[in-house]
């Protein structure tokens, strides 16, 4: 019953009723990891401060949420919501767009054949975007890479203990968590791969290869480096 009520709350305010975020507008089309599925993601944030949260870790908190909890922070609509819908309509408009209200990040999934699957894809895409766009402060004094970051590092990292298991690759949903922690570190060291590599017990080359192994990670790092006047990794 509690659940039913919360679902209904989450489904209210369907269309955009929230004030738009200020800042600049990035529009990018990303190829997803899932084959045969094209997802467009528009982000409408530059930087924002997380207000009202009792915890300051912000972005990490979002990613720690279950799909259901994350959904509850989003508003969702299907496209072209015109007419009475339901039994009246057969248009296969299964496209889903979700907007994460605390950050204003929008994720869409349009190519799957069921709305349910599009919703799952949009949520997965939202997680990636949260990892890419939401930064957590890192204290470099006595920095210890968190477990989720150690898990995406290659086995030769000297920071990696035996309890980390085998390396998690970009196709694993858990990769997103490690990617966020890696970007947090990259921002803390102002985009320097060699500095970050030292904190991770890796050679500069090994860290570069890890960054280049995932398109969205590479793009985020290169965007940061360009903004600092550094050469992009290729």
């Amino acid at each position, binding site marked *: 019953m509690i659940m039913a009520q919360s679902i209904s709350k989450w489904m209210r305010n369907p269309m955009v009723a929230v004030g738009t975020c200020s800042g600049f507008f990035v529009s990018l089309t990303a190829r997803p990891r899932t084959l*045969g599925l094209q997802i467009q993601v528009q982000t409408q944030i530059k930087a924002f401060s997380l207000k009202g949260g009792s915890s300051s870790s912000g972005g990490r908190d979002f990613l720690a949420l279950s799909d259901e909890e994350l959904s509850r922070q989003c508003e969702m609509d299907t496209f072209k919501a015109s007419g009475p819908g339901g039994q009246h309509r057969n248009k296969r408009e299964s496209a889903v767009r979700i907007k994460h209200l605390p950050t204003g990040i929008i994720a869409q999934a349009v190519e799957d054949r069921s709305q349910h699957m599009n919703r799952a894809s949009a949520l997965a895409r939202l997680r990636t975007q949260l990892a890419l766009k939401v930064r957590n402060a890192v204290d470099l004094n006595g920095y210890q890479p968190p477990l989720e970051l150690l898990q995406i590092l290659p086995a030769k990292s000297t920071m990696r203990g035996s309890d980390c298991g085998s390396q998690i690759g970009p196709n694993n949903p858990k990769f997103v968590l490690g990617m966020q922690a890696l970007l947090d570190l990259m921002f803390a060291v102002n985009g320097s791969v060699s500095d970050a590599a030292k904190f991770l017990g890796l050679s500069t080359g090994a860290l570069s290869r890890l960054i280049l192994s995932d398109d969205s990670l590479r793009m985020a790092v290169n965007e940061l480096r360009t903004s600092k006047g550094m050469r992009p990794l290729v």
Partner: protein
Amino acid sequence: MNSSLPRTILSTISPYSLAFKRQKLPISTRVSGPVSFPSISSIPSSQKPRIPLFLRPPIFTTSLSDLQKWQQWANNLALSVGSKFVDSDNGPDTNILCREVKWLLEDAVEDKSILCQLVSPENGKLVKLRADLDELYCLWKQRIEERRPFQYIVGCEHWRDLVLSVQEGVLIPRPETELIVDLVSGLVLEEEGLREGIWADLGTGSGAIAIGLARILGDGGRVIATDLSPIAVSIAAFNVKRYDLQDKVEIRQGSWFEPLEDVKGELAGVVSNPPYIPSSQIVGLQAEVGRYEPRLALDGGENGMDDLLHLCEAAALMLKPGGFFAFETNGEKQSKFLLDFMTQKLATNVHNLEAISDFCGIKRFVTGFRR
């Protein structure tokens, strides 16, 4: 028949008796409404389920370049539609139709990965198909020229994480209806009595909701799905078997609660997507819907609520105390009417009534609990 009753009488007759009478009408009188059906929509005489395209054996072969020609032809046909269907009855536009071409190809080929080679097909390369190329030409012509629903063309609909077999005579499950399973899923996580209980999906059609529920209930939970239509019963049985849920989902032929006398007062939950479109609006429906989908599953009588009123009233008796119900409606107006109706007439039996919106923000469902 109901539509001949003056409005005032309609509101004073018990909805139960009205719905009851209506259900007793022979199917033929329900189907032969004022809408004229093109020949293709005639309900197949055989009630044996047709095998959906994607499940047929890949026994046909064609060259990749011939398949490319088909694709170009199909896309051109889709392009020729432009906004014609949108303007006439809010039907599909070129974009949607081109996406359907892609999906039709996906279902038709044995190996989907070959489709990316269609851009520049290698000379002489062959591809295995689940339907003859001539049949694909014929099917896409029916889609464009006769507005036959895409789901009947390929014989399936993707719904939630399921791929359900559908054919003429069975309603194509809608994306809105997926939410009924979500609503129940939240509930059964919290309450064992609901998770391990007996649920009813009334007017199950393809079996969509029943199968969706069966997959979220506990080991002891089961679903009884009813439908008046023999075709629906056989398609639902086919889909239940495909998901290996024969032990969890039982299908019974009959009208609404009629086949459920043995579980009266014991049901943990009742869900339904009953016909709710007002009779007068059937004529103006999108061609894919009005010409092809079973009127039995769409036409809810004069105000669209003949069946919904019956369901609300009967659910109050069929559920066990604490049992849950969720019914799909035509939208805000019906949801409000039904909530008012239950608050006034059924308040001693039901409580915690709520109207819940779909993803378009339309109040689509009424839900509540038996006291």
